[in-house]
């Protein structure tokens, strides 16, 4: 019991510290302090890009979304009321912007003809950092698995994808996801469950659909 009380108090202390950090940062941003801008970018540019990239699966789209997100963050920092943490506020903007970008994409670019359709050439894993301590076979297997997961993620319903990405890749808690998506905790749990099931089904489907190696006997000429 004593341990749980200690845990709770340490959690509250952490939350209070995050809150005060956010308030200090926001105040400094409102005053136009150079270090505050640097701190904000250092803390959030990479996670926001990763989130946008996972939601859109397109580097240039993700880049546009990140720029739009930070423009909005800087423009609206004055109206930030600390009702949520800075992290969830920025992630909420990112999810909304990614949603808008996806809608725009489907309206305008769907009809465009892609010239380079070779999946090996258009894959987005060029920038992934390889783990040199592993064998090439393991690396190749991991890469293939990640490619499959990424492709499966792209195929599932965007509503479920958002929840899964926020939970499993961005590592937000259920409560934070509820704040980011503006839905109830129960809805978050349900979306994560449905998203994971859909992802698992997609992965199972893609494994089944893969052409197996076939040995065709041929008579030597």
């Amino acid at each position: 019991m004593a341990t749980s009380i200690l845990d709770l108090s340490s959690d509250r202390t952490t939350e209070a510290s995050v809150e005060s950090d956010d308030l200090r940062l926001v105040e400094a941003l409102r005053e136009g302090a150079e270090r505050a801008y640097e701190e904000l970018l250092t803390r959030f540019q990479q996670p926001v890009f990763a989130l946008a990239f996972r939601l859109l699966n397109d580097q240039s789209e993700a880049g546009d979304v990140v720029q739009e997100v930070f423009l909005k963050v800087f423009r609206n920092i004055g109206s930030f009321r600390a009702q949520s943490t800075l992290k969830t506020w920025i992630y909420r903007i990112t999810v909304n912007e990614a949603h808008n970008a996806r809608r725009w994409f489907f309206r305008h670019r769907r009809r465009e003809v892609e010239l380079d359709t070779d999946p090996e050439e258009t894959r987005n894993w060029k920038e992934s950092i390889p783990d040199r301590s592993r064998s090439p076979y393991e690396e190749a297997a991991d890469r293939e698995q990640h490619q499959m997961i990424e492709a499966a993620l792209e195929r599932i319903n965007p509503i479920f994808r958002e929840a899964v990405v926020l939970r499993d890749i961005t590592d937000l808690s259920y409560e934070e996801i509820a704040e980011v998506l503006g839905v109830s905790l129960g809805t978050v749990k349900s979306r994560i469950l449905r998203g994971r099931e859909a992802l698992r089904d997609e992965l199972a489907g893609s494994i089944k659909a893969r052409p197996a190696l076939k040995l065709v006997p041929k008579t030597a000429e």
Partner: protein
Amino acid sequence: MSCENVQELISSLVDQGTSGGERQNALAHIESCRECSAQYESMAKMRASLREMARPAMPARLRADLRAIADRDRIRRIARVSFGTRIHNWVSVFQIHCQNMMRPVALPVAGGIISAILLFGMWIPDLTATPRSFSGDVSAPIFTDPSLSRSNPVRYGGDVVVKLIIDERGKVADYEVIQGQDSEELRNFILFSTWTPATSFGKPTWGKALWSHGEAIQVKG
């Protein structure tokens, strides 16, 4: 606990989201049920794979763009703080523009100024040197007017203005009273005065002079 209930909880179990008796019961069921165990394992594995996915590297260009966005916003925000800051900001912008404009011509201009200073510095001694004069020199000007060299020792007390014509020997050739009374005393005064004749290119010549109250007013010869 039925398989259906456990499968609803599997996602939360993977996230360590369920606690207490419910979790114990679900885990006990998973240990005993092959199907639920397989589902739990596949879900946990998939989550691990999602968490292991490499973070997409952020393009350097995007980082630079974000920094530029942040700088622009900071300048805008600082400018809004006070009028003084706004003025200061304008001044710094003007200075930057001036520096950018002047930098390409700074070296040639500095070189030109230094050369000019050196060149004119060498000429200054010649420009400021006073000309030497010799006692027997003929006066340098092209024309000189006649001047009174020695006046009559007898003082003339009248109030008169006289126009005189002086010949090349310095003698009064003619006179005309412009103002005042002509008198014997005035004529004697003129007769015994000695004049330096007018000169043209160094040679004595005729000239005119105005004489008033005992002192001559020089006129063109």
